[in-house]
């Protein structure tokens, strides 16, 4: 199962709590009735579908309920960056420059997940794995 970082819950959560919301950063025209058929078709139906970085909306529907945006690599399915809805779209070059230290797709030991202090830095443990 994929672990996805939710920018509102501020931790990685299992994939089945989330729902994909299609391509991000598609602006609806303020004068939708005045759009030409071609422009409306392009807004409504045409998506970029690139091989490489894709910008997607995701919704943490079985968690905080919030929409957020994610940059994902469509070749590897890796999540490279998540950011809150309304924040500016990061440039691809910038995303590639600052890949997260820990990504959901890296095989993080269970003890290091979802905690402020990784297990290896903690003095005492309560026996939890």
């Amino acid at each position, binding site marked *: 199962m994929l672990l996805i970082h939710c920018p509102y*819950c501020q931790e990685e959560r*299992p994939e089945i709590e989330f729902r994909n919301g299609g391509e991000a950063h598609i602006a609806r025209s303020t004068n939708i009735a005045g759009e030409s058929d071609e422009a409306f078709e392009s807004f409504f139906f045409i998506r970029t579908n690139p091989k490489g970085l894709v910008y997607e909306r995701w919704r943490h529907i079985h*968690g905080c*309920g919030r929409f957020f945006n994610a940059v994902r690599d469509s070749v590897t399915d890796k999540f490279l960056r998540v950011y809150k809805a309304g924040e500016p779209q990061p440039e691809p070059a910038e995303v590639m420059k600052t890949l997260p230290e820990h990504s959901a797709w890296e095989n993080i030991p*269970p*003890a290091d997940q*979802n905690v402020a202090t990784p297990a290896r830095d903690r003095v005492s443990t309560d026996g939890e794995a």
Partner: protein
Amino acid sequence: MVEAVAITAKRRGALDHRSEAINGVSLQPAKPARRVSLRVRSDGLAPLSLALGLDLPSKPKTSVTANSRSALWLGPDEWLVIDDGEGDPIADLAGVSVLHSAVDVSHRNAAIIVSGEKAADVINAGCPQDLGLQAFPVGACSRTVLGKIEIVLLRTAPDTFRVECWRSFADYAFSYLSDAARGV
């Protein structure tokens, strides 16, 4: 002449008469509670907290309990308030003038108390979250999934969880948890 007949109606909970203790895990229906689905922007936190008598938590996955009343963080502007005592949160919120939405969902939800040493394992049979004590400490709460349904999970003690689900799903949730308890 029609004779007056005294009609008595008895309220039946969704999980009445269901309780199980399997492999050291106890499943009990929670006692009836008043519940409020609360939505408010951050500027309304202080007056609502004052009215409710507890500080609405603003940190993800945390809850605050005062007396019989708990406020569970569900989202950045969303809380679930549960009161299984005498208090009525809706009445307490009625006088607040700041813009907010408080909906009485007392009868929408039913709750199951899962307790026992292996309570986390039983819930993990259908819930994909990390329920270790460090990732999900006492007081932690989250909306998440259990099998095919959505639940709100609250850890009330190291070995005790409260599972809130929609009333019509209560039978499914209880059966799912008791099946899981047979397997741990």
